[in-house]
Each structure stands twice: as structure tokens, then as C-alpha cells.
């Protein structure tokens, strides 16, 4: 199987090159035979890579430790669940996974693209084949997952304990799916540039693909946050680590695109900008891959430092130069079809929204790269940690939250003063009301005050939009209000799905603000002894150490501490926190002991208990107890975000308006049918 896998990689490499060449030549010369060949090459590429994946999986499941990758990331006693995820637990396997998923997306792009966008497909095949070929070449020349050891160990090293968590099974694939699928909108953008068909058509072809990437990347980030929270034990979910940061960059840029694309669809404006966003999102995804895989910036999440970094750097430079050159040469073809009529308009608010999204992306990128810059210019090593990022990004994030509410309230083209007054009255009153309640309630943290009161403002905006729409349907079709809301969403999924995403953003911001009120304590406790901690809501939690037990489970030896929790004297439950010593099949320790956190999650707060260790091998234990307010809302907000995203993505609903058609005028709100009065 190893030989088969290796051969499959070579086959994929050659087929990918062929697909790239035939796609570009076939597209440029309009040769149907070459175009067809490029299309077939994407299928063959996918097939070859699937064979390679199967070969590696067979090696993993057969415990073929003569394979360096299998020996490095698995062991005989690794649970089956994690044998699957071993495919992407290490650098080499994850490259194979990446290339295979990209080839799958390439096939889907060929198969799912509608007939009217077929003109782009040869170029799309070429771009996807070449990008996949790059990943295959990295495997063949720098990180081959089928590399053999000179001997066969009795057992493998096993998987890093921190990766043996359900979150880690789903987080990397989701994040990869997000990263990888950005290549499809990028390929369509390149196809539009090369074919010079730069009207709004290509946007229609890529909007849903971008949404798919955005959703996968968002889910990947959220699962990653959840994993960090439950597994790493430091008590938070976002540490502004370089690898986290670079995953956020394309997501921010795609979010900007998903807003500004509406301006191009409705008004034929921002063509250059939208194209730049799609190209930029892909380049940032490759940049993120370079940072993650090169080890150029120290991160707990990155793969070990290896020569693949040079490959990615080279690819980034070549792809960047080629992309920017092509873009610049086509700028004259990207003229706007309309002009802005007023500074107070939905179009202008989208532009400011884009400014903030790109501003935040830039500040995150700047902070991530600043240590390298400092060392290169001054020779001084510095650390840019959470205090820096919070200081720079919190004000920008709050500005963005405000625009989340302001944007939908402003009419397209030109908003009149009475219109603004009517639109803003309820949301602004709600925001101010929330602010006053918080002030009276004693909240003094400015960031949290702003986040929650702006959250109130945006929440009221969304509710107002739903209420007005539902009322209109209720009046027009005599539908009950509940049905009217459902129909409203079903008939205009993009718009109201988007509002649901806005609600999710409110939930996330309020949840983030909750962490400003985190409280914690440490204690050394004998069995029966207790520690107390006051929650931000004024309740007193009592944590009583019940005792320690040790037992074996699957591939680990566990030391578990049990803690009884009472809130104001009332029993809340028991929490268990563990030390795990992972062992291989013959009982040898494989990694240093890891810590498993005990968490009791609730809508108000999470109780987070960490076993530090035992005192001199006795049941006397050192603990850290933390109360994290509102963390549950981060996960719920993520869930709402996914629901909103899926509604937007779901096929059907209102057709995408073609600029200038009556449909677009109705959507833009300036065509109204006057019916005779009875």
C-alpha cells in the first residue's frame, strides 16, 4: 500500500500539471478538447489522491510502524476514533488531507457550476489543479507521508494527548475546509480576469462558494476555541496566538466581501474592491498556511519547523506576484456602472464596514508580524501578546458592532432624515436603555458596557427588521405572525439569514465581554477541605475536595480528583478533573502527564476546575478554580451563526437579482406597486 500511495502522489503530480496546462491553454485558445481534458484531469487528480489517502489510512489502521508518519502519530492502543484523525494530526498527513479536499472541491466546482458560468471552468480547473499540484509537490519533495523508517518499532509514539479530544477531530478538518475552499472563489476570480468577463456574473458564481468557505472557517475557528477552552486548561478560548490570528485573517476579509458584494450586485459598484477581496482572502489563506507550517513565528499550534516553509514562501511570492500583476492589468476593465448618490446610504455604510473589517485584519496581521519586524529592524526581540491585541482591536471591534446595527437601518442609494429618524428611534433607545440598566447595576468596565449596550442596539435593529417584515406579510397575506416570520425568512433567506448572523455576532460580543468579569482562586486542599470563590453575580461558590482515585482507561493511566460544588450552600453538582499519563501498548509512558479540566457550563457562568497536582503523592491536591461568565453564549452564538449561515446558503429563496432588473429594484426598495384603493 505504501508503494501504491507513493505512486498515486506522483500520478497526482503529473495529472495536476496536465490539468493546469490544458486548462489555461484550452481556455485561452477556446479549444474544447483541451478544456474537456482539463475537466477530466480534476477528476483524475481527485481519484489519485483518494487512493493515496486510502493507502495511508490502511497503514494507520494496520499499525504499519515501518511508515515514519504512522510511528510518529499513532500507537497500537490509540482509540479508533483518533486513528481516523491521525490522518491530519501531523504535517505530512495534513498536507495529503489538504490536497485531497482541494481536489474534491475542484471536482465539485466543475460539477456544480451552472451552465451560464461554464466559460470560467477551464481556468478554474487550471487554477485548482495547479494549487493542488503545489501541495502534492511539497509532499513529494519535502514531507512525504509514505516515507519509511529503516526499522519497524514495536509500537508507535502515539498521538499528542491534547489532540485526543473530540474537538481536535473536527477542528482541523473544518478549518482546512474553510482554508481550502477559498481556492474556488479565487479560481473563479482568476478565470474572470483571464477571460476578461468581469461583469457581475462571476460574482454570482463565487458568492456561495465564498459563503461555504466563510462558514467552514467560522465553524473551524469556533471548534478550535472550544477545544482550547476544554483542553488547554488556561481558562480562555482565544489567546491571540499567531496561528489563531492567521486563521482569522481570511475570515475577516471574506466577511467584508460578503457585505460589499451586495453593493456590486445591486449597484454595479466596487468591482475592483470585490475582486481584490477575493484574491486577498486566498493569498492570506496561503500566508496562514505558511505561518502554521513553517514555524517562522513560535506558536503552540504550529507544526514542527521544517523545510516546507520555504516551499510555501516561494509559492506565496510567485502566486502573489502573478495575481497582483494580472489584477493590475485588468483594472481598466473594472469600471463602476453607477456612482454613489449620498454619503448617508447603505452603500456607504458597507464601505465603512469594509474599512473596519480590513482594518481589523490589518491590525491582527501587523501585531502578528511586528515581532519579526522589530527583530529585523532593531534586532530586538519582543512579544506581542493578548494585552496588545486587546488594546488595539477592542475599539475596532466595537466600531464594527455598531456598524452591524447601523448598516441595515440605512436605505440604499439615499436615506432621508425622516427615514433615519424612523429607523433609528427604537434601536438607539434600546441601546441607551441597556446602558443605563448596566450603569445602575454597577457595571463600570467601559469595554463591557459598550459591548453590551451596542449589542442591545443591534439586537433591537434585527428585531425591528423582522417585526416590520412580518407585519407587512401579516397585512398583505393575512398570515399569522409566526407563519409570517417563517415565510419572511424562507422567501428572503439571504437577507434574514444575514440578520440571524448579526444576532449571533451580538451574542458573541456579549459573551466576550463576560470574560472581563472572570474570577479565580487557587487552593491546596485535603479531602474534605473547601475553598470559596465569589461569582460576578455576588453568589458564593464552595468547592470541596472529595478525594483522589486512580485507574486505567484505554491508552492512559488516570488520576482523578473529585470536587463537590455548592452555590450559596446549595449543592450544584460534582466536578472531576484529571491528570492523564498516556502509555503505549506495552505500558511505556508516551508523553508527559496532561491535565483534563472539570467544567460545569451554564448560561450565567462556567465553573472551571483544574487539578494542578498532588502534594508529595498524597490526596492533598492543588487546584485552580475559575468562574468564567457567559462562556456558554460563545458556543450558542456560534450555533446561531451556523444556522444563519446555512439559511443564507440554502438553495432557493429569493433569486439573486440581476443588476438593473425589476427584481433588483424591488430588493433595493425603490419600486413599489400602487394598487387601486377599494
Amino acid at each position: 500500500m505504501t508503494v501504491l500511495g507513493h505512486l498515486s502522489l506522483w500520478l497526482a503530480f503529473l495529472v495536476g500539471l496536465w490539468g493546469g496546462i490544458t486548462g489555461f491553454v484550452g481556455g485561452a485558445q477556446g479549444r474544447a478538447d483541451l478544456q474537456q481534458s482539463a475537466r477530466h484531469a480534476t477528476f483524475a487528480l481527485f481519484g489519485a489522491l483518494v487512493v493515496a489517502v486510502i493507502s495511508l489510512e490502511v497503514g494507520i489502521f494496520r499499525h504499519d510502524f515501518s511508515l515514519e508518519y504512522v510511528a510518529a502519530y499513532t500507537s497500537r492502543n490509540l482509540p479508533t476514533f483518533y486513528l481516523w484523525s491521525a490522518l491530519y494530526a501531523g504535517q505530512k498527513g495534513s498536507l495529503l488531507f489538504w490536497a485531497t479536499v482541494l481536489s474534491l472541491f475542484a471536482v465539485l466546482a466543475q460539477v456544480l457550476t451552472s451552465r451560464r458560468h461554464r466559460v470560467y471552468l477551464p481556468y478554474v480547473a487550471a487554477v485548482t489543479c495547479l494549487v493542488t499540484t503545489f501541495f502534492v509537490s511539497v509532499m513529494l519533495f519535502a514531507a512525504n507521508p509514505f516515507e519509511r523508517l529503516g526499522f519497524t518499532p514495536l509500537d508507535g509514539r502515539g498521538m499528542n494527548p491534547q489532540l485526543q479530544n473530540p474537538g481536535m477531530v473536527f477542528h482541523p478538518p473544518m478549518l482546512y475546509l474553510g482554508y481550502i475552499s477559498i481556492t474556488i472563489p479565487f479560481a473563479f476570480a482568476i478565470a474572470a480576469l483571464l477571460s476578461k468577463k468581469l461583469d457581475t456574473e462571476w460574482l454570482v458564481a463565487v458568492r456561495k462558494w465564498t459563503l461555504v468557505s466563510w462558514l467552514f472557517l467560522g465553524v473551524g475557528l469556533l471548534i478550535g476555541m472550544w477545544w482550547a477552552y476544554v483542553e488547554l486548561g488556561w481558562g480562555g478560548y482565544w489567546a491571540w496566538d499567531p496561528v489563531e490570528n492567521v486563521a482569522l485573517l481570511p475570515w475577516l476579509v471574506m466577511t467584508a466581501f460578503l457585505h460589499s458584494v451586495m453593493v456590486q450586485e445591486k449597484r454595479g459598484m466596487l468591482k475592483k474592491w470585490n475582486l481584490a477581496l477575493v484574491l486577498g482572502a486566498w493569498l492570506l489563506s496561503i500566508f496562514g498556511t505558511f505561518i502554521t507550517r513553517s514555524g517562522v513565528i513560535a506558536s503552540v499550534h504550529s507544526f514542527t519547523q521544517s523545510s516546507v516553509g520555504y516551499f510555501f514562501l516561494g509559492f506565496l511570492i510567485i502566486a502573489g506576484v502573478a495575481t497582483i500583476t494580472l489584477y493590475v492589468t485588468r483594472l481598466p476593465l473594472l469600471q463602476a456602472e453607477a456612482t454613489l448618490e449620498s454619503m448617508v446610504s447603505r452603500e456607504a455604510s458597507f464601505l465603512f464596514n469594509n474599512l473596519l473589517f480590513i482594518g481589523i485584519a490589518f491590525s491582527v496581521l501587523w501585531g502578528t508580524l511586528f515581532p519579526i519586524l522589530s527583530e529585523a529592524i532593531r534586532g530586538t526581540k519582543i512579544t506581542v501578546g493578548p494585552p496588545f491585541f486587546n488594546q488595539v482591536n477592542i475599539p475596532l471591534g466595537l466600531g464594527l458592532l455598531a456598524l452591524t446595527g447601523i448598516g441595515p437601518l440605512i436605505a440604499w442609494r439615499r436615506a432621508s432624515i425622516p427615514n433615519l429618524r424612523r429607523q433609528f428611534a427604537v434601536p438607539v433607545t434600546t441601546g441607551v436603555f441597556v446602558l443605563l440598566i448596566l450603569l445602575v447595576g454597577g457595571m463600570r468596565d467601559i469595554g463591557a458596557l459598550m459591548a453590551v449596550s451596542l449589542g442591545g442596539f443591534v439586537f433591537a435593529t434585527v428585531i425591528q427588521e423582522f417585526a416590520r417584515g412580518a407585519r407587512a406579510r401579516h397585512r398583505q397575506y393575512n398570515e399569522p405572525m409566526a407563519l409570517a416570520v417563517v415565510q419572511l425568512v424562507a422567501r428572503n433567506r439571504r437577507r434574514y439569514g444575514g440578520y440571524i448572523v448579526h444576532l449571533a455576532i451580538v451574542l458573541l460580543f456579549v459573551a466576550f465581554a463576560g470574560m472581563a468579569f472572570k474570577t479565580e482562586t487557587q487552593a491546596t486542599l485535603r479531602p474534605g477541605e473547601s475553598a470559596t470563590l465569589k461569582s460576578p453575580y455576588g453568589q458564593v461558590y464552595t468547592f470541596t475536595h472529595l478525594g483522589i482515585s486512580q485507574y486505567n482507561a484505554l491508552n492512559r493511566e488516570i488520576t482523578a480528583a473529585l470536587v463537590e460544588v455548592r452555590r450559596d450552600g446549595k449543592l450544584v453538582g460534582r466536578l472531576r478533573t484529571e491528570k492523564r499519563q498516556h502509555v503505549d501498548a506495552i505500558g511505556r509512558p508516551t508523553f508527559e502527564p496532561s491535565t483534563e479540566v472539570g467544567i460545569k457550563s451554564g448560561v450565567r457562568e462556567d465553573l472551571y476546575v483544574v487539578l494542578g497536582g498532588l502534594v508529595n503523592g498524597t490526596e492533598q491536591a492543588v487546584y485552580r478554580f475559575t468562574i468564567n461568565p457567559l462562556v456558554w453564549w460563545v458556543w450558542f452564538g456560534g450555533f446561531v451563526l451556523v444556522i444563519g449561515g446555512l439559511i443564507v446558503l440554502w438553495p432557493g429563496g429569493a433569486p439573486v437579482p440581476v443588476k438593473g432588473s425589476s427584481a433588483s429594484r424591488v430588493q433595493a426598495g425603490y419600486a413599489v406597486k400602487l394598487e387601486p384603493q377599494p
Partner: protein
Amino acid sequence: MTDGNRREFLLAVGAAFLSVGQTVQRSDSAGRVYDPGRAGRSMTPLTAADTDAGIQVIEKKLRCSCGCGLDIYTCRTTDFNCTYSPALHKEVLRLAGQGKTAQQIIDEFVGQYGQAVLMAPPKRGFNLAGYFVPSLAIIVAAVVLVRVLRRWTREAPAPAPANAPPAASAAELERLQRELDRLPG
């Protein structure tokens, strides 16, 4: 079966029941656990200084040098295998014991380990670029954006002359407004 054996057997059964089928060894009556080696590094009881809020504030500004990217306090209360953060914590306690202020302790660390020991660079010299370039870039971009938008609005087709006859009667316009209000958004 002797009494001792029976007791051991019953204890083992009870423990197995509690652990739902897993092999369990409860700690012995002396309070020692069955196998301390599997519980990670042995700890010493926390002192008042270990949990002191002032010490925590200082340690949250200083980075652990183990490569975890966390501050000293978070690392020593999270990664219990780390040998750096407990040593750095002791260093902070030693300096605090000498009567040094928080700033003096931080300065001492910077002197010893360089600026990289700070979780965020000090706001002076070249580091100011780190803090202010993003904000400045956004402000400049906003100014440019406003100018571009103004130019665009000037280039927009002129609105219909004010003295043009109204296309609809007042009643019709009012109805139009009502219809517009009914439209979502």
C-alpha cells in the same frame, strides 16, 4: 477465602463498580495515592504569596520562557509540567521579598531577559509603530474613503429639478410612503 482476602475482594469489586468497569485503585488509608508517579510533578502546598493578587498582576505582564506564549501566572497554573514558570515565579517572589515595587520587578526581568519577557512591548520608540500604525492606517483610509465618496456623490447624476411637476398627488405620495414603510428594510 480469608477475612483479609475477602475485604480486598469486596473493596476491589466496589471500586470497579464505582469506576464503571475500569480498574480502580483507591488511595490507601495513609492518604498516599496508589501511584504518585502517574499524577505528574509533585507539588508543594500553595503559600499566601503564591496566591497573592499583587504577584498575579506582575506575573500576568511577564511571559513564560517555555515557549507556551502564556504569561508566567497562567503558565504555572495551567502547564504543570513546565519547569520554567515555577522558577520565574520564585524569581518574582524573591524580588518582591526584597521590597521591590511591581515596576522595579518588571524592569529587573526586562534587564535580565530582554523586552521579549513582556507580554506587550513598552509604548516607546519603535514599539509605538506597533500600537499606532493600525489606528493611523485606518484613520488615513477613512479620510481617503470619505474624500472618494464625496467625489462619487458629486459625480452622481443631478437630482430632478425642484420645480418639476410632481409625478403623483399628495395622497398618492402618502400611499407610496405607506407602501414603502410596509416593505422590510
